[in-house]
């Protein structure tokens, strides 16, 4: 699916975020030469198409005291990953959960689940809960803690034309 030039302009105008003013869409509209009404209509369309997932705050886990952030990775039986993945993804402390390809021989893991907690002990306890759910369908697992944010930006579109 491609996006129109107007949509591209709208996305570019909102990349840095939505202004914290009483009429934020009117502010974006004036930058893009659209009326507020037209802009709202186009944003609704972008949401319907899934281009915009939601308009929301991205919290800083570290500042919220969730300093332990573990990417748990699991080698799960391919035949059972659909059902088990859904179960793990539904856990309240798992923020992202994906099936990804293995990179053999060094990387046998095909299920990735991000677990957040205040301490590593807390994250380890949650990892234990996940291991119990996966049971014999899991042949091995590991956890990777993030020690530093090296870059964090929103999606940047290349400017065209």
């Amino acid at each position, binding site marked *: 699916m491609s996006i129109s030039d107007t949509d591209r302009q709208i996305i570019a105008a909102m990349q840095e975020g939505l202004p914290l003013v009483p009429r934020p869409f009117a502010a974006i509209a004036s930058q893009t030469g659209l009326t507020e009404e037209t802009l709202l209509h186009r944003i609704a369309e972008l949401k319907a198409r899934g281009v915009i997932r939601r308009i929301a705050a991205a919290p800083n886990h570290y500042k919220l005291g969730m300093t332990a952030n573990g990417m748990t990775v699991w080698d799960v039986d391919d035949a059972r990953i659909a059902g088990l993945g859904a179960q793990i993804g539904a856990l309240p402390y798992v923020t992202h959960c994906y099936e990804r390809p293995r990179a053999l021989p060094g990387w046998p893991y095909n299920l990735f689940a991000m677990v957040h907690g205040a301490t590593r002990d807390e994250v380890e306890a949650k990892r234990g809960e996940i291991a119990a759910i996966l049971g014999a369908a899991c042949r091995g697992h590991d956890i990777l*803690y993030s020690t530093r944010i090296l870059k964090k930006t*929103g999606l940047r579109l290349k400017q065209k034309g």
Partner: protein
Amino acid sequence: MTLDDTDRRILNRMQDDLPLCPDPYAAVAAELGLAETDLLTRLARMKESRVITRFGPFFDAAAMGGAFCLCAMEVPEAVFETVLTKVNAHPEVAHNYERTHRLNMWFVLATETPEGIQVTADAIERETGIAVLRFPKLQEFFIGFRVAA
């Protein structure tokens, strides 16, 4: 900054979608029983102190015809900063984390076309001489980004 209960309620609410109407903050403020100016002031303060890293639309590159891909590299400590500079120089690198593993650099590529992933990952390999392992998502199991503040 320290967050009070009102800040926490705001942060929890604002991780969900903002209503799409001319005065969305007034609508959320009414939901929370706050004045709009109070909501905006607190949001601005949380953004300024980086409790909120960003407030705005979350885009899905895949829905625009583009792609995301999680990538990992095994970067020797001695050249870590040099490699980091080269990797981060690519605008397609959306986030990048240092992690405790032999594979110690993990980043997400977001590109406007599916081919862009390979082009960028190959370019990084060329520039750094280090393999870029690619872990595109095969299946997504619910995304509940929200954290309880």
